[in-house]
């Protein structure tokens, strides 16, 4: 479970995140939706310990990030906005590196990597150097690397960004699988369809604040809109930065 409690973060005079609170529960997919520049990535960066909030706190499985960031990192699997791989290493070596950094021994690391390589359908590319990988192959490798330590909580920053239709479908199926395994899945997106199709809960962020936090059905009911798209526009207050 991931809890954000009153998060604030400013860069100079720009308030990127201005009081964000929500809860992402285990066995659910929580979608963080908002236009570009709404503060999604900054919020996620605070959740996965890369940035310190100016105010507010983050709890992962009840552990305060400010108190024990290392313990939180063991419980988090993160696909950041930056997905750089080591291009002179093979996909498997990329995954192994993170397994070792997570403190896994060689045998459990290999077993876990094999399982992920099979689950992500990337057996054919596992032993190729990642230089020249397609966007989809890169994202798969980055996800396998992020989940190699079998974390209970998964944070994905725009996981389908840049993927083609087939890869996007595969990614959504994989996210449902993570949910079915009982994990807490939190992902950000600016694509409404995706969020509507996947999420148990939608947190809408605009201008650094939470403007809605509900299930897709409740969101429709709340706004009185007939489609999710209209509902989003209603809560955000403008159509700026949203993609259908």
């Amino acid at each position: 479970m991931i809890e954000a409690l009153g998060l604030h973060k400013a860069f100079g005079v720009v308030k990127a995140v201005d009081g964000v609170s929500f809860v992402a529960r285990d066995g659910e997919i929580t979608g963080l939706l908002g236009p570009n520049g709404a503060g999604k990535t900054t919020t996620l960066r605070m959740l996965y310990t890369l940035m310190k909030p100016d105010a507010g706190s983050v709890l992962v499985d009840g552990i305060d990030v400010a108190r024990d960031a290392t313990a939180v990192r063991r419980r988090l699997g993160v696909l950041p906005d930056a997905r750089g791989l080591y291009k002179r290493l093979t996909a498997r070596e990329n995954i192994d590196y993170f397994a070792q950094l997570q403190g896994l021994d060689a045998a459990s690391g290999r077993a876990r990597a094999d399982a992920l390589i099979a689950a992500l359908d990337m057996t054919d590319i596992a032993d190729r150097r990642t230089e020249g990988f397609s966007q989809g192959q890169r994202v798969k490798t980055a996800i396998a690397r992020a989940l190699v330590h079998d974390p209970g909580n998964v944070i994905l920053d725009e996981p389908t960004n840049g993927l083609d239709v087939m890869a996007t479908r595969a990614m959504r199926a994989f996210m449902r699988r993570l949910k079915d395994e009982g994990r807490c899945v939190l992902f950000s997106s600016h694509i409404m369809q995706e969020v509507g199709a996947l999420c148990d809960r939608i947190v809408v962020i605009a201008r650094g604040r939470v403007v809605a936090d509900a299930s897709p059905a409740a969101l429709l009911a709340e706004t009185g809109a007939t489609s999710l798209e209209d509902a989003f526009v209603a809560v955000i207050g403008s159509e700026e930065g949203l993609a259908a």
Partner: protein
Amino acid sequence: MTGIALKPMLVVFLKEVRENLRDRRTVLNTLLTGPLLAPVIFALIINGVVARELDKADKPLPVPVIGAEYAPNLIAALKQQNIVIKDAPSDPERAVREMDADLVLSIPKNFADSWRRGEPAQVELIYDASQRDAQGSVGRLRGALESYSQRTGALRLLARGLSPTSMQPVVVADRDQSTAQTRSGTLFAMLPYFFILGAFIGGMALAIDTTAGERERQSLEPLFVNPVSRSRILLGKLAATSAFALTSVLLGIIAFSLVGRVLPTEKLGMTLEIGPHFALLTMFVMLPLVFLIATLQTLAAAFAKSFREAQTYLSLLMFVPAVPTMLLSLFPVKTETWMYAVPLMGQQITITRLMRGDAVTAEQLGLCFVCTTTAALLVYAMTAAIYRGERLAIST
């Protein structure tokens, strides 16, 4: 979980080494360019110097002469000194300036008249004092002219019944205290620079790749999400950078020892002390310096916003070790103990003295080691502070 998990620092170290060993350019720089720099440049210089010295001493000296016909006796005397008389160029001043000729001897028309009247007969030596290469030739010709002049003077005195020694109330005897090694001082002052430069070249690729490169490729953010403190990650990266630089330096010392053996240094009367003693003590003082350089390079690379910017910073950084080298070769001051405490300068002096076979005391070696280590730790603390900062990881 079963089995033993590797320590994070070691994990980072091994990954950086493996990844960079797969980069052909990095390997080439570490194993070839860095190590070969010192021996190759030294070999070139020594061979150049040897060839020049041998050239000057034994070979006939060609001298273009204007008006050779006015002083046939003088010309004959010069020829006996293994000087070959050549036709003069039409514009002697220009020929000397353009380095077409080292020097030109000009004998004026009235030479014979002055000679017969017993007046000082003047000849002109046209040369360019700023051409160091020509100094040997000028010296030889001047010597030949003066000895001819003295011989003739002595004969004239004898003809008048005087002793030639009455013309020499004071006689100076030279007792030069320089040794072959000290005479080639500039040469020796330059050499340590190339060892230090080897360390710079050996570590450069990794310092950039592990910091600015990793950030530019956007892999620093995922890396930092692992449950490993950033200082551990930094230490692993520094260890990998130092390992490459150290390999470079070690290979450089080995290559230099081998090249030093086959170089004709004895023809210059120089003896090089480049045995195991030299190699061992050089490695000892270079060890903290390699870590200092690796840390400095990483610090500079961490400041850079991109790979290219990092390359620019690190190239500029390479000029830093040239400063003590230039100071020491321009102002050859007496070696004071405090100089061992200055990183770069300490190594510079130590290597120079070791190579010359001069003594370096244990205290001086220790001072050099401890002070450079302290400087390295200071720079490490600064780099670690940058690493802890939020901005480092954010690539976009």
